[in-house]
Each structure stands twice: as structure tokens, then as C-alpha cells.
């Protein structure tokens, strides 16, 4: 009787899970082996979509660009959020205010932020190039230049998301007992040594978590490229998520889009597995 009641309570969630998560996951897996344009009947073509994608120059270009973005964004984002967390860990006046200010971009709409940053990056009348010109630097045409567009988007993303990881790092820092620092200080350890030998090792489990979710988030970049550059100039900021969306909802090719999604899933899975494998080498286990 008790278990039946429990199942009853779980039923809404189970229905939601089956209808909105498990069902689409299984359906898209099947569709990835079909030629399926929205509205037409799916036709089974085996590995046709995968073969076509793996032979396509654009797929490899887009995958490369997604990796490049992750390479730019992940280290910068983790370093910025750790830096902010270390600064805001100190007991200073206005601590809550500063924490709120640095967290604000996280709760700001990505679309609004992307539009504002589009203006800041304007090659002719943008604030960024104006500030650079004050110190004698002629700024690039950020979003108009294929070489600079992806780094510019990565910089904007770091600004947007650093506050989130900062909060996680702050929680991690709060869990490090102060005794270790006091003992090290008494032994004459410098601030850098204490950071390297105490803070970093004890923060490494949190760092690992942040690294994994930030990497996954980097691979999923979509809104920034959609709003700021539409994948341009040329196709220089086309990333995997954008490519999947475009294939499904602009080109109406759900079969190919599903195959892309599973290739994307495999890439993320592989990368996450590698991170877990490397974990033992640098993550401190208490």
C-alpha cells in the first residue's frame, strides 16, 4: 500500500521524465539513423547521416571552432572566477555589495548582455576600442574580423559567467579550515606558498567540479553566437550547438541534426571521461 502511494506521488515526475526526456532522447537516437525532414516520414538510412557529417568539411571546421572557444573560455573563466572568489573571501567593507555586483551578469539575460557587448565591440564607435585608443592601441574590428570574433565572444562569456563559478569557489574556500593557514603562517609560509600548498589542493575537488561543468557549458555555447554574430563573419563563429539548431529548425533536417547531437554528446562524454581519468593526478582526496 505504502509503495503504491509512493508511486502515485512519483507518477507526475515519471510521466514528465518519460514524455519530455527519455522519449525525445530515444526518439532522436533512432532519428539519427534516418533521413527525416520535419513533416515527412523518416526513412532509415543506417549510418548515412554520420558518414555524411564526418566527411563534411564544415562539421570539422565547426568542431574545431567549438574546441577553440572552449580552450579560450574555460581556463580564463576558471581563473577569473577563482581570482574573484579569493578577492571576495577577505572580510572587507561592502563585501555583500561586491559579491552581488559580480554575480549580476549571471542573472542578466544573455540576449540583452550580448546586444550590449555587440555595441561595446563595435569596431568604429565601440567603447572598447575607444578605451584602447586612449592608451595608444588601435583595437581590432572585434566581431567583424574572423580572427577576433570567437575570442571576443569568449571574453564576453567569461564576464557573463564568472560570477556563478565565483560563488562555488567561495563555498569551497569557506570549507577550508583556517587552522591550516594559521599554522603555515606561523611556520613562515608566504601568501603565495599558502595558496599553492594549502588553498589549491584543498580546493581541487571544487575546482574539478567547476572545470567539468564549465567545459560542458563551453561546448554548449549558443546564445552568444546566435545574437552577436549569427555564426559570422563567414562561418567563423559557428559552433556545434548553433549548427545543430540551424540544421533542425532552419534547414528542417531532423535526421542530420539528431546525428549531430549524438556526435556532440560523444565529444562531451569523451572529454568529461578524460577529465575524470585525469582527476586522480591532481584532485586532492581527503
Amino acid at each position, binding site marked *: 500500500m505504502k509503495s*503504491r502511494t509512493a508511486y502515485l506521488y512519483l507518477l507526475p515526475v515519471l510521466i514528465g521524465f518519460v514524455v519530455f526526456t527519455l522519449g525525445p532522447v530515444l526518439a532522436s537516437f533512432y532519428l539519427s539513423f534516418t533521413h527525416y525532414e520535419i513533416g515527412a516520414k523518416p526513412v532509415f538510412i543506417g549510418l548515412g547521416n554520420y558518414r555524411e557529417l564526418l566527411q563534411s568539411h564544415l562539421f570539422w571546421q565547426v568542431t574545431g571552432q567549438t574546441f577553440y572557444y572552449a580552450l579560450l573560455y574555460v581556463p580564463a573563466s576558471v581563473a577569473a572566477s577563482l581570482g574573484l572568489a579569493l578577492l571576495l573571501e577577505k572580510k572587507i567593507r561592502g563585501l555583500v555589495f561586491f559579491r552581488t555586483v559580480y554575480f549580476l551578469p549571471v542573472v542578466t539575460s544573455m540576449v540583452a548582455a550580448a546586444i550590449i557587448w555587440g555595441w561595446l565591440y563595435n*569596431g568604429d564607435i565601440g567603447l572598447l576600442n575607444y578605451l584602447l585608443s586612449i592608451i595608444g592601441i588601435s583595437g581590432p574590428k572585434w566581431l567583424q574580423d574572423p580572427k577576433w570574433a570567437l575570442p571576443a565572444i569568449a571574453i564576453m562569456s567569461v564576464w557573463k559567467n564568472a560570477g556563478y563559478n565565483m560563488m562555488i569557489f567561495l563555498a569551497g574556500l569557506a570549507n577550508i579550515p583556517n587552522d591550516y593557514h594559521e599554522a603555515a603562517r606561523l611556520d613562515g609560509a608566504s601568501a603565495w606558498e599558502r595558496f599553492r600548498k594549502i588553498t589549491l589542493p584543498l580546493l581541487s575537488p571544487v575546482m574539478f567540479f567547476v572545470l567539468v561543468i564549465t567545459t560542458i557549458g563551453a561546448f554548449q555555447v549558443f546564445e552568444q553566437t546566435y545574437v552577436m554574430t549569427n555564426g559570422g563573419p563567414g562561418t567563423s563563429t559557428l559552433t556545434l550547438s548553433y549548427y545543430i539548431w540551424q540544421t533542425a529548425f532552419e534547414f528542417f533536417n531532423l535526421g542530420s541534426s539528431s546525428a549531430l547531437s549524438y556526435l556532440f554528446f560523444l565529444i562531451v562524454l569523451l572529454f568529461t571521461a578524460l577529465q575524470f581519468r585525469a582527476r586522480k593526478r591532481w584532485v586532492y582526496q581527503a
Partner: protein
Amino acid sequence: MKVPRLFFLFGVCCLAVLIGCGSKESIQNGKVHLKLVHFYLDQKDTWQHDVVEPFMKAHPNIEVEVEAVPFGLYTTKILSSAASGTPMGDVIVIDDWFGQELFRRNYTIPLDSFYHRDLNPDDFFTQFFTVWRKGNNANAPLMAMPAAGGVTALFYNKDLFDKANVKYPDSTWTYSDLLTAAKKLTNNASNPRDKTWGLLLDDGLFTGVDTYIYSNGGKILSDDKTHSAMMEPQTIAAVQSYVDLIQKEHVAPPPDPSQLLGQRFMLGHAAMMLHIDVAKTELKHATFRWDVAAPPKGVAGLMDRQNGQAFGITQTCEQPDSAWQLVKWVVTLPSKTGVNDLFNSAMPLYKPLAHSTEFLDGEPNCNRQALVAINNTGHVFTLITPGWQEWRDHGFTPNMQDMLAGRKSVQEGCAAIDRKINEVLARYRAPQ
């Protein structure tokens, strides 16, 4: 015993959901019930007051329910419903860029018999009809009734023209006149904030570049739309002259994909732009004086791409005769009220509406007569093919941006576009 019961309960819940999603009966209390679905969310009230209510008053036996869907979600919803075999409504608005996707799947019914029975083709700008016929073929069934058509217009900033003492454009202009004026209107200010350009170019989204290429003798697609025509000498020459406006003549800024379409013109940094005429709604709050003229004529005369909106009756509509009454009403709009707002001020294709003062004097006020007159002298073409968005977004636009920015030569860029168009079209021709 418990598990089967659980499955039973699960089944009941699913059934309840399915029943909840079911459609209404087409006849209720002796009245025909129709559902009209459109994407004019901002004009929802206008649609209700100026279309639906007068229609129901004139047709007391028909009741119309309206669903306004945001434009960004509209195609996804329409095509998803097409995929599931449950159309969203009885009468739906269709935009030219996804119309053929629906027609290929017989999502709507042919309207030729209704059209020829109740309407006079002479009352319409029928040159816009091809894109609404199945397969984009002039002799194929009409799958949706065209209501509004977009034409390419030459927008110009009167303040900048007056400042440079340049005569306003008119319907006699050629592309040579455009270049001469653009040179006079481009200033050499060293401070980018004071810089004004003579012309703002479309970097490949078919909001002007297509008109330019076709008017100057080029073609993007072969006449039967089965192959690319990008490598034809006239096309290469037309693209070269377009690129030269930036790279050689320096009368237009390089492309900037981070800017909204037409943004530099809207901000008063460009004196002219070729753009689809609905852009005039964006200029309602412009801080400068502006107007529109017909696009210049090239060696091929004045060419314009077919686009716009039409209304279709879905395959599952149980009352097609009543639905046609609604379609006819929307397209001909007997009261004329609201004609300027209903389609974002795009030109009605029903001539009495296009020539009405309600449309010609509508807000924002500009020389709409010049745009309507294009229909008498211009020639329309269409670029819609199966997979056209793919060859545009992964072929035409990025390569056009590269050419305009000087990253690729015109020969290289056209060759890359040519390959992409042919690759996509070949895929759609191949049996699946």
C-alpha cells in the same frame, strides 16, 4: 498486481493529456468553428478588431478563434504540428521562406478552384503568386492565397541628401546614378563617429543583394532553379561591381554581422540602403527625415525578389468552404480598415487595397506609391528551392561576407557559393 495497476493509471493520465490536447468540433451550436493562426503578435488587437470581428458580423454562422504565435516560434510550431499530422488550425498565415516546406508535405489544400470561382485575377499583382504555388512552379496548384508582398526599396536619408546637396532618388535612377550619389554622400571624416557612408549593403541575406545581382544581369540560380548560376560571367560581373562598392569605390562600409540589418542607416550613418520595404516600420521613430524610392535599374531593368505572406487552408480543416470565406476576407479586406497595420505595412497584393488611401497614407508616411508602381515595371524572381536556407546560410552569406570584406576574391567566393548551391540542390534531387 501493483505494476499493471500502475500502468493502467499511467495510461489514464496519458489519455487525459491527449484528450486535453484534442481539437474543438468544427461545428458548435450550429455555427462553424474556425481557428485562425498567425504570427502578428504585436498586431493581435488590430487583427481581432479589423478582421475577425467584422468577418464574424458579416458571417454570423461562422465563429473564428485566433491564436497569435510569436514569429520566432511560428515555423517550429507549424512544422512540428505538420510532423505530428495535427495542423495547428484551419487557416494559417504562411511566410514565403517556409511555404514550400509546407506545400511539399501537402499541409495545405489547393485553392485554385476557390480563387477562380470568387476572385478576379486582374485585381491582383499576380506576378507574386509563383512562390505560393507548389514546387515554386508557375503552373502548379496555388497552395496559399497571397495577401501581402514585400518589394525591395531604396531607402534614403533626406537630411544627408540635403546636406550634400544631392537630388533625391526617383524611379529613373540607374545603378550608375546610385554610385555617383553615393560618392557625394560619403564623407571623409577621420573620426568614425562622424563618418557617413553613401550606401549600406546587404551582406548576403537577400534583403538587397539579390535585387542588385539580378538587376545587373546576373543570376543566383538557373531559370529552372535546379542549379547554381553563380559562375556565369554576368553573375560574376554583377557580384564584382557589388563588391567594388566597398573595396574599390569605398562608398559603403564592410559587412558587420554583429549589427542588425540596416542598423547603420537607422542610426543616420548611411545615406541610402537597399532593403525590403517592411523595414519602414523600423523607421517610425527615426530622428531624421527619410523616404523610399524604387530600386535603381540595371542592365536587366528592375528586378525584384518575390516574398511576402499568404493564407492557407490546412489539409485537416473540416469546413474548407467557410475557411475560404475567411481567407478571402483577409486578402480583400472589404472594410480596408487596418490594412496598413495587419501585415506590418507590407504592400497588399489585392490592387484595390494597395491603391487605397488607407494603405498609401498609412504610417509611417512615405512614398508608397513609388513602391506600388514597381509592380508595373519591375520583374519578379524567386530564390526559394528545397534546402534554400542551407545554401544561403552555409554558402551564399558567409562567402558574400568574405568577398565584401576582401578576404576572398570574387572568383573564389562565387565558386564556393556555386559548389554549395549545387551540393544542396543535388542532395534534394537525389532519391532518398
